[in-house]
């Protein structure tokens, strides 16, 4: 399939794909933001053992964790408008991107709720007691004492979620969204240089993941400065090395 491999195309494709990086990042940012809100709402009934809501949360989490995100995309994109039609709401004008963001938001919300639950559970009970003992309300104790500690502890898990989400967004092309993977399909079709376009594409995903990973490490170090031994180790020097690793370029040439 396709034409003879030509290295030059890789360099040519990279900037063309980068034009669509913003769509990919938009999906990631919007769906993670949505996922945080959903995740917190879903985690609360399970943390505070609220009877019926607890069950609903559990079902929601197991559905979104237990089915492939590709199927979720189809279900929401094709299923939700049908459902809304039943309520006589017309969803045909809603852009595809909104469905994509909704799906990834709900998907990551399930994982985020589990991360929140685990992290809050990991905060020592004594911390809350100390907060109550000095006269804080439940809300103050949660927002000022529990949440900052839970957030710091869960940052590595959260980083994984964001990076997984970034890579999952590549499936959005199946609904015809013109993000990076969608664009690479078209570029491949029109030029018949499929291998080059996928190499360019994977390089971009790789570098973006790498940058995110490093940024999260920095954030983790910052948030865990009260207990540095718990934070992942990185230094500014290693951060730069990670981004501009010599073998990284070599890998491109060999391929």
């Amino acid at each position: 399939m396709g034409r003879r491999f030509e290295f030059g195309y890789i360099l040519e494709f990279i900037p063309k794909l980068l034009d669509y990086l913003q769509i990919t990042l938009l999906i990631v940012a919007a769906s993670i933001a949505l996922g945080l809100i959903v995740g917190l709402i879903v985690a609360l009934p399970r943390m505070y053992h609220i009877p019926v809501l607890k069950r609903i949360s559990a079902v929601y989490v197991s559905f979104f964790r237990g089915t492939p995100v590709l199927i979720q995309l189809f279900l929401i994109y094709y299923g939700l408008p049908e459902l809304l039609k039943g309520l006589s709401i017309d969803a045909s004008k809603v852009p595809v991107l909104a469905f994509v963001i909704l799906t990834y938001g709900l998907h990551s919300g399930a994982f985020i709720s589990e991360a929140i639950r685990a992290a809050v559970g990991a905060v020592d009970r004594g911390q809350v007691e100390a907060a109550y003992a000095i006269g804080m309300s439940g809300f103050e104790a949660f927002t000022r004492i529990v949440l900052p500690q839970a957030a710091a502890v869960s940052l590595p898990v959260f980083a994984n979620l964001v990076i997984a989400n970034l890579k999952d967004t590549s499936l959005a092309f199946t609904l015809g969204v013109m993000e990076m993977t969608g664009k690479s399909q078209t570029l491949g079709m029109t030029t018949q240089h499929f291998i080059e376009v996928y190499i360019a594409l994977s390089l971009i995903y790789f570098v973006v993941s790498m940058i995110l990973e490093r940024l999260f490490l920095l954030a983790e170090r910052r948030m865990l400065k009260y207990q540095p031994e718990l934070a992942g180790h990185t230094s500014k020097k290693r951060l730069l090395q990670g981004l501009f690793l010599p073998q990284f370029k070599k890998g491109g040439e060999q391929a």
Partner: protein
Amino acid sequence: MIKLSGIRKTFGKQEVLKGIDLIVEQGDVVAILGPSGSGKTTLLRCINYLERPNEGEVAINQLKVNVKRASKQDIHTLRKKTAMVFQNYNLFKHKTALENVMEGLVIVQKLPKRQARELAVQALEKVGLGGKLDEYPSRLSGGQQQRVGIARALALNPEVILFDEPTSALDPELVGEVLAVIRKIAGEGITMIIVTHEMAFARDVASHVVFMDGGVVVEEGPPHQLFGTPKEERTRQFLKRSIQEWSYSI
């Protein structure tokens, strides 16, 4: 004045407190002694409702909180009038020594930051940690952490400070520095209730000693009486054993 009346508490089927009455006068330093499982820590935690009693009334001066009618607001007010020093320090891990002490002043007492900072620095200086203001708890020794815990309680200027075995989690060589700080603030007329295993300390510092066993107050009185001429057989037994253990360790 703090007055506990008829405090009962059960965990599952086990009755841990079987109707405790206790009066603590303003400025008293009360030591609560007793074997493990006697309910002394539970009693202390009932005072600020970290444990909710099943029955009874906690009164601090004009504020009377009866379990039957205790509203969230009552409990909140009760907690604002008290402060607690924990066995495991329970310093806020993500805050520096100074921030730990300021937290209650700023968030609960709504003092302006500058004033809170001044009070917090004063309290930390009083416990001998004026040089460790910006250290996180993980960088402090157990004894230093507990002194921050004491400063955090002290700065709130509560009607009573509740000490829950403040030296039990400490290495033996760090116990002294914490006891010295408690002794110092006891001399300043702050009302304190101390659950402790440190017999010598209780004898020297307390103005009133309470001996608990099996969920009841067995005997109470001034230290010279309780340690010198205990009336109850159970008290004598306990003191004999504890003081023996204590002399072993020397």
